[in-house]
Every structure is written in C-alpha cells, then in structure tokens.
C-alpha cells in the first residue's frame, strides 16, 4: 500500500521557488495563499546556506486533524490528509497546531477575518467528485486521480523535492546518499511521521 510522503533534499534545493510557482499555477491557489514555500537557512553565509521547500507533510498523527472543531479532516488510504472546505469555519486552530505552518487562510473580510482554510492536498483534490469542476474550484487539481504525482515534486529541476510513495522516494534518496556520501537527513520526517511516543503504532488512515 502506498503511503504518500514528501522529502526535500537540503543538499540540492537551490531556492528557485519553482515548486511554489508550479503549485500556484497547477492548483490556481487563492490570492494571498502559498501552499508551498521555500525557506533558506543561513541565507548568504557561504558554505552554511541550505534551502528547504516545505508544505503540508501529511502527518501520520496529524495535529490539525485533532484540533479541528468541526472535524472536517480525513486521511485517505494513501495517507494524504485532506479537508472539507464546506465544513471549515476558518477558526485557525489547524494553523496553530500544525508544526510546519501549512494551513493558510485567504482573508475573507476586514480585520484579518479568516476564510476557508487552504493547504497542500498532495495534488489529491478534496471530497468533491474526482476531477470535477467543483473539486478544482475548491481544492485544485486532482493529479493522483489522473495517475500523476504532485506537480511541485514532478517539476523540481534539481529533483531536490521528492513526492510520492514513501518507500519509493526513500529508496531514491538512499541511492542518492550512497552515491554522494553525505546529507542523509530526511527533513521533517521525525516530526511528521515519527510515532509520537516510543513504541506507539503509527496512525492508520481514516477512510474518506
């Protein structure tokens, strides 16, 4: 069974923000919202600069899901964390709880009133019928239902950003690390997929 994950190789990311742009255009993301962003550590320090692309990591035991007052999240059988915008009340709790700051809110009114939460869907749309107009309007393209993988990872020019079945991308990465002999850290996996307590079983999908 496939378990969808993202992996960003900090050794390779050149901070071109191509993934951000690809995501925005593929999903026609609302104004003011970026589902993916690139963060540079030690910007401008020669030898110490590293960039990482980050979006929703589709956590195993997702804090966003746990705090949502209307319980609008679900996890697909591929491990993708999705939500129902028709139910979302824009309370912002998922944004407080998410370790990666993935949930974003288009401004819906004066004084910073939050609209419906928007976040990376792993290019898997939402609960509307797959590949329908309604789904595209609310969540963007459903590439998984087209047999494709997330646009950001597929177009990454240096292949720093890998996205797809966790086993496959881990293999690709292992292969790569062996070849270059350094930089083996898998960014954010401990936070997103690690069992919360030692010995705890990872969460299973809640079917949509």
């Amino acid at each position: 069974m496939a378990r969808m994950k993202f992996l960003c190789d900090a050794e390779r990311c050149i901070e071109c923000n191509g993934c951000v742009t690809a995501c925005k255009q593929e999903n026609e993301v609302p104004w003011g919202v970026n589902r993916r962003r690139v963060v540079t550590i030690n910007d401008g320090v020669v030898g110490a600069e590293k960039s990482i692309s980050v979006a929703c990591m589709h956590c195993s035991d997702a804090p966003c899901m746990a705090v949502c007052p209307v319980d609008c999240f679900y996890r697909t059988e591929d491990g993708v964390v999705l939500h129902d915008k028709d139910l979302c009340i824009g309370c912002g709790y998922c944004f407080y709880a998410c370790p990666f700051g993935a949930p974003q809110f288009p401004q819906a009114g004066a004084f910073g009133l939050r609209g419906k939460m928007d976040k990376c869907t792993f290019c898997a749309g939402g609960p509307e019928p797959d590949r329908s107009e309604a789904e595209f309007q609310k969540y963007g393209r459903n590439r998984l239902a087209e047999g494709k993988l997330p646009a950001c990872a597929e177009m990454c020019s240096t292949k720093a950003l890998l996205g797809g079945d966790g086993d496959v991308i881990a293999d690709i990465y292992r292969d790569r690390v062996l070849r270059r002999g350094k930089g083996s850290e898998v960014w954010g996996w401990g936070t997103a997929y690690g069992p919360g307590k030692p010995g705890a079983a990872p969460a299973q999908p809640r079917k949509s």
Partner: protein
Amino acid sequence: MQGITRLIAAFSAAALIAGPAAAQAPAEQKADEVPSPQQAERERAAAQPGNNAPVWKEVRSGQPNYTSIPGRETDVLIQPGARFPGQSHFSTAGEAWRQFRNGVVTFYGGWLVVLVLVAILAFYFAKGPVKLHEPPTGRLMLRFTDFERIVHWSTAISFCILAVSGLVMLFGKHLLLPLIGATLFAWLTMLGKNLHNFVAPFFIVSVVVMVIIWLRDNLPRAVDLQWLNPAKVWGFFAHSEHIPSGRFNGGEKIWFWAGVLGLSIVMAWSGLVLLFPNFDQTRAAMQDAWVWHASAAMLYICASLGHIYMGTIGVEGAYGNMRNGYTDETWAKEHHELWYLEHKGDRRVGGTGGAVPAGAPHMKENA
C-alpha cells in the same frame, strides 16, 4: 528556553495583566555580547562543511530564516518546542498546544462545568431555594434603574451567546456532531463563530459600563467579611440565615471583582489577540492566548452558573428585582439590610428613577 518562559508566564499573575503576547516577547539580545547561538551554529556550519548537525539544529529551533514568501511566520520551518503546564516533555509548540487543548482543557474544563452544574442542582433538590421569612409588605423599593438593567441584560445575554458558542466550538465535535451530522453542525458552528466574534466587542463594552456604574457600590465593607466565613455562607444557602449587607453583599462583590472585572480582563485581552490575526502576532502568542481564553472561560462559565442559579431559582425574589427593577421592602430587609436601612422609604434609591409608577410590578404574595 521558550517552554520555561511559557511556564513562568502561565503561573505569574503579572502575565494576567501583561497578557499572553507580552509573555511571548523574545529575550532581548545585546549586540556587543558573545556571538548568539545562531551565529555560533552558522560559523560551525561554515567551518565544518561535511557536518549538517548545525543546520538541522536551526531547523528545529523555530527561528526565523529567510523566505521570499510573504505572510506571517512563513520563514519558520518547524514551530519551536514548547511545554504547557502539566506536560513533562517538550514537543513542537503546535503539538503541545494540541495536547493541552484536547487533553487538559477539554477534560478538566469539561468536568469542572459538569460538576459545578451537578453540585448546584443537587443542592437545589436537597435544600431548596433561599426563602423569605416574612410575607412581602407590598411596598416597593427601586433596586435597579432602567439603565442598570439594560446594562446588566446586555452583558448577560451577550455572555450567554459567547459561552454557548464557545462551548460548541470546544465540545460540539463530541456532543453535537454525532447527533446532528456534519453539515448542520458546521453551519451552526460557523454561525457560532461569527456570533462569538461580533458579540465579543459588545460584551466588552457592556462590561466596561457595568464596572463603571457599579464600582462604588461594590467597594468592600467590613460587613462583607462574613461572606468569607464558610459557616455563615452555608447558613445563608442552606437555612436562609440572614447576613447583613449593603447594596451588594460579599458574594456579589467577589463575583464583581474576580469575575466581572478580573476574568473579563483575561477574556477580553486573550480574545482580542485571537480575534485580530492581522496584527502579525505569532502562533505561539495565539496558542498562549487560547489557553488563557479557554481556561478563564471555564472558570467564568462555572461562576456564572452559580450567579444564574442565585439570580433565578436559588434565591426567592432575586430574579424579579433585576427583571422589574423593584424589590419588596421585606426582601430588601432580609437580604440587604444596611441598604434597606439607609434607603427605607426612599423610592429613588437607584439614582435616576422617579417615583414608583402606578403600574409598577409587585412582588408575588406567595411567601
């Protein structure tokens, strides 16, 4: 480090006033001191190109980095570690907040409200309301002016809207959602959230006015100390024994100072931090504000349950006073003797009212 700051903040009374945002203020760094840890890690990373540990340390630190994406905290990769009161170890701030919210606040807060409700109702069924000893005289005294009653009911009704919508947002997922289904529940919660947001400023204004108009009558007096004596208080509730008091008694004064004033300040401040996300406050500030907001709300709701009980079924005649503004002399004498003695026969006690109008309601003669 931040977790310790949080702990201190959570327990210090100063933070009550300074507010959650202030508790989050980062420690100031002086430029001329030894290089900051961040600087040291940078140098380490440059000096040891094969060693990625410094970079990953910075990733987990929650420090702001560089990003070209606009927005608040987009330059933070992972929220820093944090620990809320009662948590034994640090976890990502969001995760810590999730555990505090879904664990401590939901569990203890929920139990607290339920237990207070149970205790009040159990008491009512066991002992019944506080009764008058003598029949009403039929002579009325003005206890609350129209303005006072308008302010009271504005506060009370907005409080109830806030409390119910707040409870729905915390517990509705478990209680209501399974009963009424996601579509209706989400619609109700959306309505509740918007009511919560728009009624809150109205509530704050009402409380401010209320505090101003009743401040003088709530200044503590020596007689009020009796309300700190459990035996006396028990005697009052269980056996309707009289405790002399001025316009407001000791219990009402505690409610005024600790509840209406104290808790309202906590609620209003933390609520405003949550209400206006456009001031670029951090997630940590909003998490802390939420913890203050929800914890104080639980206490406020419990205290208000007590107040509502005493104002309705718990004390005979109390509800009519706030509803109509007039009270019978017997009631005044038995509950607020000093006030009664000061103002006996004076029908303009409340301040602005005139003589009792012809149609003024009378207390029911059923004691």
